[in-house]
């Protein structure tokens, strides 16, 4: 009985691991096969062929797409963190009237369906002359990251003991100095986690990127991959699509594995605390 349940448990572990990993394994496998090889199903690598990885950069500006994604996500993270560290200090450490209603509003914004702002955002981006530009996407993606970074950093800020700023207050430090000298160093780990999660959000964003860009050179990675086609109507573009998928997924997986603990903490921060 005991043995049986042990076997059952390990079987479960195995099945879950296979289910989680197989699609990515199969994408890597498919990306290393080309031409007519893709017309047959293989479960193990036979001959490793890197031509898809070259083709994806030759057939379309995929390098530019990656650069666009990095520029957009990087700027979005920097701006969101800069704004939300200040806001989180105010929300987390200072009692002022209207604080909870503001926090609730920000929480509400984080649950906005993106499509609800689509036409208004389109009009705004166009009137700023930002249609089909990276700044337009940065502006739009801030809507997705900023409410969320404010919330997480506020949660972290609250958890720090009160004594931390008391000494500084007694010495007559201004709030600006307190934020810079006392909280900024303490917030660094939380800011890394939050920034990473915001980066993932912006890196994965599709609806805005699809709607607010027009030319392939300005696209970020998700619409570039979604709209990828073969060199002819009869060619299966799956080899190159899988190569592109592997290229953009590997760095994210690496980041996630390195920052595993922090990400789990960030995702669950506030969500389960009683």
């Amino acid at each position, binding site marked *: 009985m005991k043995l049986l349940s042990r076997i059952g*448990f390990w079987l*479960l572990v195995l099945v*879950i*691991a296979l289910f*989680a*990993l197989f*699609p*990515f394994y199969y*994408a890597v496998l498919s990306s290393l096969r080309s031409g007519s090889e*893709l017309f047959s199903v293989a479960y193990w690598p036979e001959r490793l062929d890197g031509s898809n990885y070259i083709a994806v950069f030759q057939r379309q500006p995929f390098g530019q797409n990656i650069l666009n994604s990095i520029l957009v996500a990087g700027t979005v993270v920097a701006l969101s963190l800069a704004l939300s560290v*200040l*806001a989180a200090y*105010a*929300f987390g450490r*200072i*009692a002022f009237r209207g604080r*909870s209603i*503001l*926090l609730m509003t*920000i929480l509400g914004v984080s649950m*906005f*369906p993106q499509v*609800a*702002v*689509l*036409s208004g955002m389109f*009009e*705004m981006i*166009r009137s700023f002359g930002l249609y089909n530009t990276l700044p337009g996407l940065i*502006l*739009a993606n*801030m809507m997705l990251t*900023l*409410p*969320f970074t*404010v919330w*997480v950093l506020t*949660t972290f800020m609250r958890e720090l003991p009160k004594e931390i700023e008391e000494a500084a207050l007694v010495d007559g430090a201004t*709030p600006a100095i307190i934020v810079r000298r006392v909280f900024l160093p303490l917030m660094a780990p939380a800011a890394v986690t939050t920034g990473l*999660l915001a980066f993932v959000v912006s890196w*994965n964003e*599709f*609806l805005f990127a699809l709607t607010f860009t027009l030319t392939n050179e300005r696209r970020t*990675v*998700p619409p570039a*991959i*979604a709209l990828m086609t073969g060199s002819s109507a009869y060619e299966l573009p799956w080899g190159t699509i899988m190569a592109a*998928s592997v290229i*953009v997924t590997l760095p*994210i*997986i690496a*980041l996630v*594995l390195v920052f*595993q603990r922090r*990400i789990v903490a960030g*995702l*669950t921060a*506030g*969500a*389960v605390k009683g």
Partner: protein
Amino acid sequence: MSATAARDIAPAPISAHERPSPLTRSRVRAAWAFVAPTLFVLALIAGWPLARTIWFSLTDANLNNLSDYAFIGFENYLVHDNGEWLGLLVDPEWWRSVWNTVWFTLVSVSIETVLGIVVALMLNAAFPGRGIMRAIILIPWAIPTVVSAKMWNWMLHDQFGVINDMLLRLGLIASPIIWTANPDTALWAVVMVDVWKATPFMALLILAALQMLPQDIYEAARVDGIHPVRVFFRVTLPLIRPALLVAVIFRALDALRVFDLIYVLTANSRDTMSMSAYARQQLVDFQEVGFGSAASTLIFLIIALLVVITIVVGRVRLSEDAQ
């Protein structure tokens, strides 16, 4: 992702000796100065576009020329014209997309909840390789949605897909299934991919709740020789219920907004179209900004209603905690 926001709705307790001293007043001034940039940006990129969308929904605006439109009241929603009803509320395509979205949300979130509990219980057990397992289940979560949709698209390919190949080899099906193009299986395919991608998130939230349970209860149950299944239903489940509820609501809100997964996986076919995809199609593909905005506004209202319910539930929980 936004689950992070879930709790801590009530303001943190701040120093008991609150009197409007000069220091307090200067701190309050600083607080407003610190939140002002964030509020300004949010008003600009969320508040204003939302207001414009709602306004557009009452006009006949067209994407070709957004500055030239006329106010038409609620005609985008419902209008009686020449003896027949027209508008969003009587458009079968809209209701089809609503039904698709609701069906997708109910089915995928239910499966994700059950599987999430199973995975969380597994990760909560002490076994060699637990850290590696946790890393492994994070991988589907980390893969961009568009990329996972493409990966599964290829795996579900009707002629050359590995899923059909596996099922054929195992003798479970007699001929290949056209997964993503057939209306009967397409939404199930979407559910399968969503389960693959979102279960880790669910499992992590549940795991965090499990890890905060007091261990002595389990010790007592073990000493008394109570069957683990009974312990799970009588002790564990009631204790993690609040956290579970929060996780379910967050997943459901996410699922109701679904766009990219369905758009990429099923090539935006009308059989599987979600509410968001419907609104975007009207707005961008058909250039009907007025009509599309009406759909957007309805989606916003539906989700806003659920958010209000969430917050009320959150409040109720907080007051329970206080007792």
